[in-house]
């Protein structure tokens, strides 16, 4: 039973990670930017849902409101900072987004305070196998919403004009430009979509986990890992490796002990990075 519990916890958590990772994969693939501020965008999205909760609106509505606001935050961020680092060295973009992360943390600390906060969904719990396996409905809800948005995004990317433009830009920005794609606009939209995905994830985190201005980094690290494993722009792989990471974390916790949980994640990251070096050097990845 313990293993069933661990597996389900891991998968539900992993789906949420996958959503954040998909946003990262998208803008990494399109703009070649590793966004260190990813986790902080997530937390900001969470605070939007939390603010709604404070004024008496159910925080679950955050999964609609938060991405809308975050989209504009993303676009604004692109216009202010990101557009200056798009075609530059990867290192510059890491530095720039690291700076954004610090600014966001301090701003959130300033606006929302340094207290750890939670929003209550009051969704109750689903009990299986005579109460020996418990699944919080809030986690099931968040997994469901994540899947819903991910599927919607895939369809959008395949069918819509902007989606095609984004994919074209990812494959070859110069060629896309020659063929009349406004790449500047595409970049802004991509970064906005990424921020919106973070907003959804943040709203879900506010009802399943806890919020604090300085807990963004673990989300950045996890999504980075998932993207490294899955490759850029391959959504099924992102979802799978997200769930895989969730499972790995839960089982590392059971088998090695809680104190090694985060450590195990980092060990895995090192291992995967070394392994990917060989694979990546052989072929160039692009958004499919």
């Amino acid at each position, binding site marked *: 039973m313990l293993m069933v519990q661990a597996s389900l916890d891991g998968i539900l958590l992993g789906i949420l990670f996958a959503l954040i990772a998909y946003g990262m994969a998208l803008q990494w693939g399109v703009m070649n930017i590793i966004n260190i501020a990813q986790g902080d965008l997530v937390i900001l999205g969470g605070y939007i849902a939390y603010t709604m909760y404070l004024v008496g609106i159910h925080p679950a509505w955050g999964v609609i409101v938060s991405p809308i606001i975050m989209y504009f935050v993303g676009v604004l961020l692109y216009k202010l900072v990101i557009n200056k680092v798009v075609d530059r060295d990867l290192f510059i973009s890491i530095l720039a987004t690291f700076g954004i992360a610090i600014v966001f943390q301090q701003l959130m600390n300033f606006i929302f305070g*340094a*207290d*750890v906060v939670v929003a209550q969904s009051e969704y109750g*719990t689903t009990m299986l196998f005579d*109460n020996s396996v418990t699944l919080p409905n*809030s986690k099931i809800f968040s997994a469901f919403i994540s899947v819903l948005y991910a599927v919607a995004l895939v369809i959008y990317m395949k069918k819509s004009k902007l989606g095609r433009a984004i994919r074209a830009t990812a494959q070859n920005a110069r060629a896309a430009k020659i063929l009349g794609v406004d790449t500047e606009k595409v970049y802004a939209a991509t970064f906005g979509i990424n921020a919106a995905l973070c907003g959804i994830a943040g709203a879900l985190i506010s009802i399943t986990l*806890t919020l*604090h201005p300085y807990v963004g980094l673990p989300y950045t690290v996890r999504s980075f890992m998932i993207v490294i494993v899955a490759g850029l722009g391959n959504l099924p792989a992102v979802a799978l490796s997200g769930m895989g990471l969730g499972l790995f974390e839960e089982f590392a916790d059971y088998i090695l002990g809680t104190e090694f949980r985060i450590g195990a994640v980092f060990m895995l990251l090192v291992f995967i990075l070394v392994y990917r070096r060989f694979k990546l050097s052989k072929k160039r990845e692009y958004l499919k």
Partner: protein
Amino acid sequence: MNKIAKLFVTFISAITLALVSFTSSFAKVEGEYIVLGSAISLTGKYSSNGVHTQNGYNMAVERINKMGGVEVQGKKYKFEIIYYDDESNPKRAAQLAERLIKQDGVHYMLGPYSSGLTKAIAPVTEKYKIPMVEANGASRSLFTKGYKYLFAVLSPANQYLEVAIDLAVEKNGGKGVKIAQAFEQDAFSQDVRLGILDAAKRTGSEIIIDDKLPKELNDMAATLAKVKAVKPDVLVVSGHTKGALTAIRQISEMKVDVPMLAMTHCDAAKLSKQHGKKSEFALCASQWHKNLSYKDKFFGSGKKYAKDFQKEFGYDPPYQSAESSAALLVFKDAFERANSFDRDAVRDALVDTEMQTFYGNIKFGPGGQNVAKPMILFQVRCKGDDCENRVVAPTKWASDKFYHPIPKWSERS
């Protein structure tokens, strides 16, 4: 031109620096003011508790100054505090302590917020032989290093939840209990853990789960699943406000039934407000509660302190504010008994401190920790949706009976 400008700037700053270091060497007592220094977390992750600490200091300074100040050699002096923001960063805190001592010439220090930052500052104050009275560093390791200039008005961290284990054993008819525990991996929480280990040994209790939570972690589902499987008599959780909030959220979601749940940081996390009924029956360690019957002539009783604090700052004082206020009462008492501004005389007077404040009795042990004040335990109790903390131990101040065992989730509405 540019070069000349640069030279000019360098020259001016050199002169300013020289002037600053020259004038400040007299700053320990300026005119009628005794100047204290403190690096405090006004930004960064400790900023809310940092502000509670600062409010506590300011409240006491104002009160003492208004009530006649500090009398040394027949002359009345007033307190004044120089604050710097340490950004919740230990390295910054240590730098600022140096700056307070060397540039601002401060000769007496008040502590920062948190054990970690106090640990960063203590070696500096020790090096310059500056007496520091601190109110927010409870880690046991602060009191085992042989520091001679460090004094803490609060009980050390290992005492936080020892009483809870005693209480569990008492409820179990004097027999040892099965303990499951999860602690964050930081100085403070690990000291709380050591206290539990001692108590377990003393009472013949058995520790069946002993998890250490990484700092970044805000998910303890794995630990709780284990707890559910092995059914301990007591579950102990300590991981600052994040630990307390995560624990209650996941215990209620996973319907984990334990007869007793003991925690720290419940009031800092505003547990009863944020989680409401879900947090009911949680047992929490606290340094202070306004209902305790200690008294002094500056603030009267705890209740009166709480009322005045509420009026001044607009919120109920957490214990972080109360203990910070107490630190200044200790300084005042020590200055008057030393009847001098000599650092070593003040330090010796601090060693001999034995007094009662609204916050509790204060007497320093050989390591500098307060040995005269017991920890208290309160339990979250709800009437309808209205939840509050009620003192249940020690019995002398208990306003309510300790509710044990916690009803099963299936029986709770």
